C-alpha cells in the first residue's frame, strides 16, 4: 500500500510499504477513505518529538471501512464505516474503567519509555513516536487498529466523511478543552491559537454556553474563520498589550477561561519569546512556554486555564506564583476520546456544528509531503488539510 512516512526532520515522503496485518485478536484493518494532517503532526515533522524512526507511518486522524477483523471483534462487521480515535485504549484497565481513556495502562507496548521519563505510561497513539507506542499511523491506504472493540465509532452512511473525520481528534480535543472548564452563565472564554483545535474549541465554547469567545492568532484567514465560528478576535501582532486588550474587553476582569491551543512551538514577538526559541534550539528547554505564560497572566483570578496544546518536556520560567496567587485551576492532557465521540457525533448529526468548515485543502495522499510543508509554513492560508488515499496527484490547493 501507499503511506506517508517520516524520514527525518522536515522530511516525509509517500512510500510503498507492506499492507497491514491482523496481529492480535482484537485488531481490525481499516481501508482509509479520509485522513487529515494534525497540527501535532508538525511537532513530529519539525523533529521535536524523540523516538521517531525512519520509515514510521504518520497520521492519527482517519476514518474508513472495516476490511478485516480479528477473532475477538464482535461489535464491528465487514464493511462497517468507522471513525477511529487517535488514542488506543484497552477499555479494561483501571484508567479506561474511569473513562480516562488517553491514560490507558495497557495499549503502549513501549510503556517502559514514558515510565522512565514521566514516571507512568499513557495510551499508545497512532503514528506518534515509539515512546507513545510506535503504532503505524493512518496517513495511508490501510491501517491496523488495535482494541477495535473499544475505539472506533460506527457511523451511518449519508453524512459525508468531511463532517465526521474530525471526531477522530480535533473536535473532541477542542470540545473537551472547554468542557472540563465547566462553563457557567456569563463566562468569557479566550482561545490562544486559531488553528484546527482552537477553531473547534471556539465553536464548542459557543455550544457549551459561553457568553463571549475571543480568538487570538496572527493569521488573518484563521481569525476570519474564528469570527465565522462566533468569536471576537485579536491579532496579537497588531496588539501592543494583549493582556490590556483582554482586560479592556472583559470589564477589567480578564477572561474566565483561557485555553492554550498552541502548545510547545509557540511563536511570540517579545524578547522573552525569542529567548525561548534560542533555548529550544540549544536544547536548554524542550518546549516554548510563551502562550502558557500568557494564559496564566491574562486569566482572571479564580479562573480556569485549559491546555489542549501539546507539551512534551521541560519549560523555563513557569509562573507558578501567578497561578497560585490568582487561585487558578489548570487542566491539561490528551483527550479521553472514547468518552466524547458518540455525543459529539450526535451534535454533528443534529447540525449543531459543521466541523468541515475549517477544511482549506483537499488533496491526494500522494500530495501529503507538499501538504506538510505548506501547513507547517502557514502558506496558502492553510488551516486544515484532508488527504484522500487512492486519489490521483493534484496541485496543493483546490478549494
Amino acid at each position, binding site marked *: 500500500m501507499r503511506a506517508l512516512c517520516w524520514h527525518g526532520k522536515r522530511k516525509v515522503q509517500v512510500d510503498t510499504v507492506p499492507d497491514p496485518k491482523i496481529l492480535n485478536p482484537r485488531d481490525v484493518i481499516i481501508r482509509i477513505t479520509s485522513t487529515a494532517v494534525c497540527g501535532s503532526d508538525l511537532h513530529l515533522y519539525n523533529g521535536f518529538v524523540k523516538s521517531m524512526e525512519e520509515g514510521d507511518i504518520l497520521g492519527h486522524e482517519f476514518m474508513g471501512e472495516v476490511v478485516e477483523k480479528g477473532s475477538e471483534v464482535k461489535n464491528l462487521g465487514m464493511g462497517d464505516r468507522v471513525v477511529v480515535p487517535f488514542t488506543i485504549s484497552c477499555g479494561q*484497565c483501571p484508567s479506561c*474503567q474511569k473513562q480516562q481513556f488517553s491514560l490507558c495502562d495497557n495499549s503502549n507496548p513501549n510503556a517502559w519509555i514514558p515510565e522512565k521519563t514521566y514516571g507512568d505510561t499513557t495510551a499508545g497513539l497512532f503514528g506518534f513516536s515509539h515512546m507513545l507506542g510506535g503504532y503505524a499511523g493512518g496517513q495511508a491506504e490501510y491501517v491496523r487498529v488495535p482494541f477495535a472493540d473499544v475505539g472506533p465509532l460506527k457511523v451511518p452512511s449519508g453524512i459525508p466523511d468531511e463532517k465526521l473525520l474530525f471526531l477522530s481528534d480535533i473536535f473532541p480535543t477542542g470540545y473537551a478543552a472547554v468542557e472540563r472548564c465547566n462553563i457557567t452563565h456569563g463566562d468569557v472564554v479566550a482561545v490562544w491559537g486559531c488553528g484546527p483545535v482552537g477553531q473547534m474549541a471556539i465553536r464548542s465554547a459557543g455550544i457549551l454556553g459561553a457568553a463571549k469567545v475571543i480568538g487570538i492568532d496572527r493569521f488573518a484567514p484563521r481569525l476570519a474563520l474564528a469570527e465565522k465560528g462566533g468569536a471576537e478576535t485579536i491579532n496579537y501582532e497588531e496588539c501592543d498589550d494583549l493582556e490590556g486588550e483582554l482586560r479592556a474587553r472583559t470589564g477589567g476582569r480578564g477572561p474566565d477561561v483561557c485555553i492554550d491551543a498552541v502548545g510547545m512551538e509557540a511563536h511570540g514577538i517579545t524578547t522573552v519569546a525569542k529567548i525561548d526559541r534560542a533555548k529550544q534550539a540549544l536544547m536548554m528547554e524542550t518546549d516554548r512556554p510563551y502562550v502558557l505564560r500568557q494564559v496564566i497572566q491574562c486569566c482572571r483570578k479564580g479562573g480556569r486555564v485549559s491546555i489542549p496544546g501539546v507539551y512534551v518536556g521541560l519549560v523555563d520560567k513557569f509562573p507558578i506564583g501567578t497561578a497560585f496567587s490568582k487561585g487558578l485551576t489548570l487542566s491539561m492532557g490528551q483527550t479521553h476520546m472514547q468518552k466524547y465521540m458518540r455525543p459529539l457525533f450526535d451534535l454533528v448529526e443534529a447540525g449543531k456544528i459543521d466541523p468541515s468548515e475549517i477544511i482549506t485543502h483537499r488533496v491526494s495522499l500522494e500530495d501529503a509531503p507538499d501538504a506538510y510543508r505548506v501547513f507547517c509554513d502557514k502558506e496558502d492560508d492553510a488551516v486544515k488539510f484532508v488527504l484522500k488515499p487512492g486519489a490521483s496527484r493534484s496541485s496543493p490547493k483546490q478549494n
Partner: protein
Amino acid sequence: MKPRMSTNNSAPLVREPVPARRSRPSVRGNKGIKTSTSFTINRPAEELYAFWRNFENLPRVMEHVESVQCMDNGRSHWRVKRSGDKFMEWDAEVINDHPNELIAWRTIEGSDVRHAGTVRFTPAPGGFGTEVKLSVEYEVAGGGFTEGLAKLFRHSPDQQIREDLRRFKQLMECGEIPTTVGQSAAREKEVSLKYEEAK
C-alpha cells in the same frame, strides 16, 4: 547499612513476611539479584491467583521462560532462555501457598540457579481490582554476577521482571498482549524489536 536480606538461615527467603518453614535460603546474603515490582490489575484476586498457580501458564507472560512443566510430586521443571540459543533449567517447589493471596516458590537444593519468587495478591482500594507484587531473587551457583546472571538476563533484571508482570496485567485485563511487531513501515528492519530489546 541495613542488609537487604538477613543471612540468618531461618530468615524469610524474600523480603515478604513468608512464614519460616525452611532451613536454607536460596540466595545467600547480599549476593545475586533481588528485585520486586507491582501493578494494579483490574481483575479479581481469585482469577489472578488461579492463572499464576498453574506455573505452566507463566511462559505466556515471562518472555525469557521457554517452558514450565508441573510434575506429580508438586515440583515444577523450568526451562529458561539465556544468551545465545542456550537454556538453563531447574526444578522448583512451592514453599508457601495461600489461595488468592500468595504463592512462594524456590529452586530445590543442588540447582545450578538458586531462584526464589513470591507473588502476592491484595485487593486494591475502591474495588478497582487487585494489587499484585512480584518479588524474585536469582543467584547462579559457582559463578559471579557477570558470568552467570548476565547470561540469564539480556537486560536489566529489574526491567525484565517489570515487563513480565506488565504482560501478566495486559493478558489478564485485555486477553491479549499489545504489540507492534510485524506491522507496516517503510524500512527493511523491524524496529519494534529494537524497542523491545532496549528494555
